[in-house]
């Protein structure tokens, strides 16, 4: 197995950790704001690592750009939507969870 494959596998496993954490957080965290927090991690890093892993495998710069574009889009859209949802929740009167 080539070194690139090894790195890819490593990165993919890493991304898996983030996605699992995101889902776990979505399920187990007590309120909206905490879940939002969990979700953004999965967005940014989980997908980021997948993109990185595939970039290593790619053989042309067009593929790299395409992957980067997808990642950036998810990043920007995810961040903005998370912000909007949090603000909406606040306006609707959701109180942050306290222990």
């Amino acid at each position, binding site marked *: 197995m080539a070194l690139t494959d090894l790195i890819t596998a490593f990165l993919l496993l890493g991304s898996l950790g983030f996605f699992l954490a995101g889902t776990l957080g979505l399920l187990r965290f007590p309120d909206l704001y905490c879940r939002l927090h969990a979700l953004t991690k999965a967005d940014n890093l989980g997908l980021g690592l997948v993109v990185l892993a595939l970039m290593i495998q790619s053989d042309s710069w067009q593929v790299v750009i395409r992957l980067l*574009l997808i990642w950036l*889009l998810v990043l*920007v*859209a995810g961040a*903005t939507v998370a*912000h*909007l949802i949090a*603000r909406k929740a606040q306006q609707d009167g959701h109180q942050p969870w306290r222990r």
Partner: protein
Amino acid sequence: MELALIFDLILLITLIALAWLLLASSDIFRAVVLFIAFGLLLALAWVRLGAPDVALAEAAIGAGITGALLLVGLGRLGSAEHYRGTRTRLTFLQRLSAPVLIGVMIPSISLILLLELSLHASATPGQQGLVNVLLDVSGTNHGVTAVLMNFRAWDTLLEKGVLLLALISIWSLDQARPLFRQNDISPQLTGLARLLLPIMIIVAGFVLWQGDHAPGGAFQSGAILSAGILLAILVGYTLPTRRQGLSLRLLLAVGFSVFLLVAAATLLSSDYLLKYPDSLAGSLILLLELVATASIAALLAAAVVGGHPPDDLSKPVDRSSAVNGGQT
């Protein structure tokens, strides 16, 4: 290979469970969100089935337009099940429902078994071969586009008619009402729109161009553009009043009209409906796809807005109920 099969299995179980849960859900909003998730997974199914064109279309409408349509509709409709008076008499059909369920499920399962038997028996090659043979003279290099825009162009023409007809129906039903209140559009949202809109236009162009030799094409491209228009509307853009008349109608109808004109011209010149001259086939398909994209984008966005623009024909209306209010 086994892994792929397990993937398919889990995907299908999830899809079926989703369908059941969303239809049995007591809360309509939940049903709508589950439906959006359903569309997401359905796109995965199309990918697994080797139908990326359909997956593109499903992604473009499922993620954008359908979600918006349903959410806007739900907002205007409300989710409680209001009955008139206290009567909750079951209709004929509803009383039939339990036997129907059984009566449908059992034949379906037997149908599946039948399918198994017959799929082994008859392995038709499909029309793949025929399409590939004729691809050279079709004016495009992608099978699905060739079928849509040339071999079965008559279907596509009528489908464009259905789209325009749907819009006319919607306009005949209601006047456009604002999708939301005009207050406080957050700067982040505007920023997002400013960033996404150009990308959407570029991607739509890319998908349209790609349809010539790879999955993509007018409908997918138009659906992406319409999501862009919708985003613009959501951050407060409105069509200027002077453009809401004939110009808007022309934009909506241009896709279908040009298709009809091409059909009429081919019928006049060659006696065959939609038989493109060999030398012109490529350019004609490009023209048809371009105008279709423009129309589809406008039609889908207008369908979400859900009503005709205020006009001089009917009684005067206050300006606040213009397509999306007055602000630009």
